[in-house]
């Protein structure tokens, strides 16, 4: 399993690198879709089957189609000049990224971070819960019990987003 995890993780990181370095926005979007699929595979390995399905449906299926649709609507798929910054921009971006990655790795003590043991569930609790009650039910029960009010507020947020998107994209602003 760990071997499969590292293969998928390497594919995800390689796709992400290709996503931020390809000149064409369409190629960037398709490499990002690949990253999202690899992340869905990692979610399955982490016992989050429902989240993996939602990742494929919502992210790779809906959000990225919206991105590709806008790219093609604005006709940005053609070549044209590269939008990647010059030498100084590359140096600054690389240094900032390396510093941030170094900080994050230092914070996680090079990948060996463990939460306080008083908070930890016994190993295999989540996998057992998924096996006993089903992958959807273990997410749906806390969602519709403890997080019912945030869930309802989310619907208002989505309504506001729909209205905002329609108003902003209207021909005469």
């Amino acid at each position: 399993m760990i071997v499969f995890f590292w293969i998928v993780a390497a594919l995800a990181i390689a796709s992400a690198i290709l996503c931020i370095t390809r000149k064409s926005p369409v190629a960037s979007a398709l490499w990002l879709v690949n990253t999202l699929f690899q992340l869905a595979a990692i979610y399955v390995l982490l016992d989050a089957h429902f989240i993996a399905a939602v990742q494929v449906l919502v992210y790779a299926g809906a959000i990225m189609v919206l991105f590709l649709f806008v790219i093609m609507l604005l006709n940005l798929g053609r070549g044209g000049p590269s939008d990647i910054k010059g030498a100084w921009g590359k140096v600054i971006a690389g240094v900032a990224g390396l510093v941030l990655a170094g900080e994050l790795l230092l914070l996680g003590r090079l990948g060996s971070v463990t939460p306080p043991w008083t908070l930890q569930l016994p190993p295999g609790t989540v996998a057992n819960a998924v096996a006993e009650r089903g992958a959807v039910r273990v997410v749906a029960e806390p969602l519709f019990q403890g997080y019912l009010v945030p869930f309802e507020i989310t619907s208002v947020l989505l309504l506001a987003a729909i209205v905002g998107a329609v108003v902003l994209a209207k021909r005469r602003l």
Partner: protein
Amino acid sequence: MLLGPALLVSAILFSLGVVGVLLRRNAIVIFMCIELMLNAVNLTFVALSQQLGLDGQVFVFFVMTVAAAEAAVGLAIVIALYRHRDTVNLQSINLLRG
């Protein structure tokens, strides 16, 4: 068991998203890099939910909803900008620069 490696991958993906935002000038590509960062955070939530309970997966659900709303509104703003300026290159959209 996979917690450490998953957090490592998450940190790398988040840094790549930041590099992308700093490296590119195309507004749509910058949006995609922000989506990459949101996904890195989602991976952290899922990895920690394996040891700390299923609330993390519920949070991922909310993050995805907010990301969808953000993408819809953000792309509408990009379309409105393109109508006015005929470009999505952020270098030539500098109205607020002093």
